[in-house]
């Protein structure tokens, strides 16, 4: 229920004053403007009010302000106090329109997508693993070389590349009869008195030089114990070199023969050796998780930048 309209003189005066003020401001149009204009023409008080309002409006337009008494420049202490916190700086950087957030987000997302694609591609990591096992094959080859099939490998090693890591170990069994027999007579301190050895020409300086120790030479003769200095001493290198015509590599092979006597069974040698590397089954969990994390980080950065920029616009 609406209250009854107030027709008192006071209420009418208030209404008339509001009408005149609106007329003075130029905010009336149509019937309201005609009514206010007629009111100003017929009512002395309204006319006076209209004139006074025009004068006041003109005066307020030239209203002066008291002079400034303070210098509002900021001091270093103010700047330090008002400076953004670490969190504020981070948010500011994340929301800045021309910051490096978007390129960084794009880069992270691209890396993540690429990583996901590569890690889920069949054969990508498998190919890499088989390549690695092939490269590591010479390391485990001696394990096979001790066995019956190792003779052929040993021969191949002797004939092809005596300087390779496989060659010395292969040479240890490459010529079991020819190499181990002289060693059995000369190694314990013999001075080359056996007929076989007497016929051997004097060792050349090349064959007497100690072989450069290689990691393979150290690591390979595991079954019979560590490699000893017998590689460099005694007539074994000379005999070996003379018999086979090979140089230091053959000497290293002889040491392998001493360290791993041939009477040890092939099965024991194989058991003592580290297991042969098999084609590894690639573990894709880590690259998958890492790629997914990169993708999520990139998308998160992008979304955060977008949200903060939209908020800043508002």
């Amino acid at each position, binding site marked *: 229920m609406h209250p009854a309209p107030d027709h008192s003189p006071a209420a009418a005066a208030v209404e008339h004053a509001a009408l005149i003020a609106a007329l003075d401001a130029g*905010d009336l149009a149509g019937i309201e403007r005609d009514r206010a204009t007629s009111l100003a023409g017929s009512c002395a008080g309204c006319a006076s009010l209209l004139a006074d309002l025009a004068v006041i409006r003109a005066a307020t*337009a030239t209203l002066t302000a008291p002079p400034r008494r303070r210098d509002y420049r900021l001091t270093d202490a103010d700047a330090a106090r008002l400076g953004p916190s670490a969190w504020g700086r981070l948010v500011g950087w994340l929301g800045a329109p021309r910051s490096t957030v978007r390129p960084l987000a794009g880069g992270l997302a691209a890396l993540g997508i690429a990583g996901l694609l590569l890690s889920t591609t069949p054969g990508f990591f498998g190919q890499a693993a088989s390549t690695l096992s092939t490269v590591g094959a010479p390391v485990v080859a001696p394990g096979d070389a001790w066995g019956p099939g190792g003779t052929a490998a040993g021969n191949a090693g002797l004939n092809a590349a005596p300087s390779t890591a496989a060659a010395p170990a292969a040479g240890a069994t490459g010529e079991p009869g020819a190499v181990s027999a002289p060693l059995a007579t000369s190694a314990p301190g013999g001075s080359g008195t056996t007929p076989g050895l007497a016929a051997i020409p004097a060792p050349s300086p090349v064959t007497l030089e100690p072989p450069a120790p290689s990691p393979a030479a150290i690591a390979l003769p595991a079954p019979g114990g560590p490699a000893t200095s017998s590689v460099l001493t005694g007539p074994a290198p000379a005999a070996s070199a003379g018999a086979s015509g090979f140089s230091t590599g053959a000497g290293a092979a002889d040491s392998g023969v001493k360290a791993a006597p041939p009477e040890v069974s092939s099965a024991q040698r194989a058991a003592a050796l580290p297991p042969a590397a098999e084609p590894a089954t690639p573990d894709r969990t880590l690259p998958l998780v890492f790629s997914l994390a990169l993708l999520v980080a990139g998308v998160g950065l992008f979304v955060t930048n977008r949200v903060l920029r939209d908020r800043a616009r508002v």
Partner: protein
Amino acid sequence: MDDPRPRSSEVVTPAAGTDDATARRDHLLVERALDGDLGAFNQLVEAYQDLCHALVARMVPDPDQASDAVQEAFFSAYRNLRSYHGPSFRGWLTRIAINAAMDLQRARKRRPVSPYPELDDESWQPPAGSESDPETIATTGERQRALVAAMGAIAPDQRTAIVLYDVEGYDYAEIAGMTGVSLGTVKSRIHRGRLALRGLLAERMELFRS
């Protein structure tokens, strides 16, 4: 009826070329300030502190509170400089100053102070016009004091609307946007404020008519 008040384009907007140069300068200074150059920000303060002070001092009668409001406005501008995205640093800063003044007036409602103490300080005189005869200067000074006193006596929201409309030259829509009220409320505040001024100045209207 003619509107004698200066429009915003006449009052606050310089020539277009000057405006562009000012905007470019402000933009460069803002960029430098964002890079941590406090001197660049202080150059902006120097450029706009008179403008902000004049605006806020008309809205906030107490000069100390007005100065505090202006200082707070510059603090706020420094704090939120990263949220400035153009186009006009002047407009952005003016809005911050107006908000600071309105916040202060809301707080002042709870703790009223005597407005415009410099009215009692005869050392302060409003700037004289082109007429320099003593009688004109005295009349102008008296008129200004009366008007300033009356402005300090009306409601803060009415005073803010009148200052923004009559003095600063903003239109209704701009004031509505700045103060967060409707267009009709802005008009109503201006009308009621002028009527209140007329009621306060009724005894001294001869000063304004002369």
